[in-house]
């Protein structure tokens, strides 16, 4: 069963990822991204990260990708990108080498040291029928105790995002001396 889930989810993830990289139309790419995000959400579930899976779907698929699509539509840049030409010489083979190289290195590292990845923490609470909120409770406890500073910091991060929107979206003043 787990294998089945893995295979399906992996297919979604990889298929989506390849779609993002290869689809010339930005809208299609965005949709492929959604596919990947869902696949990952599935994998989160299979790792007992139910809360994250939910957030993944809501925030990523729900908000972020929508934002992408919104911008694509807003700017009217949904024209397909011509992927048949590559202006930079050898960029694609080189990119492939880099991508494959990084993957290969990480995989090699993982494979060579997988046996050593032993338990180090108190364990991840499994969500069961008895405690359907085990994961959320555990996460909440950790986030609001040890990681409360980080949590608070995210507010600053979002504040930056807000200011950023203002700065970037505000109407340009008629600058007399500027160009």
């Amino acid at each position: 069963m787990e294998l089945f889930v893995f295979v399906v989810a992996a297919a979604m993830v990889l298929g989506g990822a390849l779609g993002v990289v290869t689809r010339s139309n930005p809208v299609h790419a965005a949709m492929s991204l959604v596919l990947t995000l869902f696949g990952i959400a599935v994998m989160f579930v299979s790792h007992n990260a139910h809360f994250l899976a939910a957030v993944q779907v809501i925030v990523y698929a729900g908000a972020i990708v929508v934002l992408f699509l919104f911008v694509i539509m807003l700017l009217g840049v949904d024209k397909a990108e011509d992927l048949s030409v590559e202006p930079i010489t050898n960029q694609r083979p080189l990119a492939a080498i880099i991508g494959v190289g990084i993957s290969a290195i990480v995989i090699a590292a993982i494979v060579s040291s997988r046996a050593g990845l032993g338990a180090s923490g108190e364990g991840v609470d499994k969500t069961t029928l008895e405690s359907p909120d085990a994961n959320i409770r555990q996460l909440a406890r950790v986030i609001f105790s040890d990681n409360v500073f980080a949590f608070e910091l995210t507010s600053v991060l979002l504040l930056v995002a807000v200011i950023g929107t203002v700065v970037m979206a505000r109407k340009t003043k008629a600058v007399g001396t500027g160009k």
Partner: protein
Amino acid sequence: MSDLVWLIPALPLGGFLLILLFGRILGEPRAGILATAMTASSFVVTVGVYLDLLSRTAEERHHVITLFSWLPVGTLHIDMALLADPLSITMALFVTGIGSLIHLYSIGYMHGDPKFSKFFLYLNLFVFSMLMLVLGENLLVTFLGWEGVGACSYFLISFWHTRDSAATAGKKAFVTNRVGDWGMMVAMFLAFSAVGTLSYEGINAAADGGKIAAVTATGIAMMLFVGACGKSAQLPLYIWLPDAMEGPTPVSALIHAATMVTSGVFLLTRMAPVLHASYPWAGDVIATVGALTALFAATIAVAQTDIKKVLAYSTVSQLGFMFLAIGSGAYVAAIFHMVTHAFFKALLFLGSGSVIHGMHHEQDMRKMGALRKLMPITGFTFIIGWLAIAGIPPFAGFWSKDEVLLYAFANNRLLWLMGVVTALLTAYYMTRQVIMVFFGEARWNDHAEENGAHGDHTPHESPWTMVTPLVVLAGLSIVGGAMQLPFSKSTHFLEHWLEPVVHHSEVSIADTWAYSNKWLLLVVAILIAVSGVVASIAVYAKGKFKIIEPKILADAWRYDSAVSAIVGGPGRAAFGGVAAFDAKIVDGAVNGIGTEVRAASGLLRKVQSGLVRSYAFVIGLGAVVLLAWFLLRGIL
């Protein structure tokens, strides 16, 4: 009186300084008179010192006065000190004596020259330097004078510096002398490292005491000889001397005949104990070079047409004689010949100067002739000089030359033979010169038009200032031989006088075949001289034989031109090569690094293409390399 030795060089130095400061105010002829007076006073002092020394016993004829400590560093103690001993005073006597005469002569000769006072400035400086050379207590003080006379020689040769040939000749003299100076410096270094001092007394005592190894002594001697070759114009460094005739004639007389060029002889005599302590072949080398030079220069003199050039080559030749003597161990003979040569060669040069003066600066003998009537005193004195140099008894040259040949015979008969041939040639070419200048027909009329602009083109006798020295020198040339007469031991005045200086080193020929047959050799010498004179008369006066003046001899065996060709051709090319190497390779490498950095910069710039995706690639590449390294560290 000996304590006043310092006055001997000080007086000309004073003259130099006075003229330096007030030369322009003094002007002609006062500057000349001042200079002459200074040199003459110096002569007087020298005579005083001489008399003082004479009054002492032989052992006490040695007086050092230290003026101040010059270069004291560690074990090296060099004092500015003067040494009065028979040798130095002998030298000082004729330097100041002949120097005074030539100063006097110059007053007349340089009359009207715009740089009149400057001439005397240099002359006084020269006399000072020469006196330092001969009076120096150590090698370095001598070297001070040695270089000083070199510099003065340079100034005086290029005195008429607007003439390119004069300027070149001056430079040539200085540089060639420097080659010799190198030898002298190395000799000093060797001496210091072997003995720990540069004072003559110390070195000679060490040499006499056998404290200098033969190899070191030979090294010192040979290096000194290199120095002497430069200054005394021996093969292969003689080339500057003929060119030095570009200077005013009194300069030729004073510097390039009587005094400076003999300093090499002086130096070797001064260092005779070291020479004595050397391997025997050192003396042979010196004698051989001397003999070769003598013969070589004599052959050249045979074909020269310039009145001064003949005398110049003759000087080179006679200096060769002196080295032949030194190489043979006959220091007294060398000094003897040096003194007599100073008399008659100065006389001849001054005489030629008088002729040139009278001929309105014409130096080509082919345009002279029959001058004895127009210039009687000059002619008469010149003839005395001729007889002296030709070796006709009883004139001075005869005695000294005979003495040299005697010792040469005892040493090496081949060298003696060369000496004899040289003597023959000397008599021959000097006779030729006298005939061409003073006898025969007057060829100067043919060229009168050329000199027309000069106004009075008839040769004339020179003023008294010029003639007086001629007369004095002629007198000395006649009687000079009396210093050292071979008749008996007691007539060896010079030998006795110099004995404290050279007696350890002087070779003894008392039990050789030559000594016992010295009268025979004397006769041979006379015959040789006479036959030379006769042959020349036959050729030039009587016209009985065809004149033989091969071009190659006129060109001095093309040695000088060969040297010039090498220096100016391959030598210059090599120098140019070094300069080009410096500009292209050494500096080129430096600039090349700059260029390479620029090129690298240009190349690296291509990475900064401005394309984000390329940047991502570069970052990715860096990441891959870096991660691969870490992975390998982790796996292996």
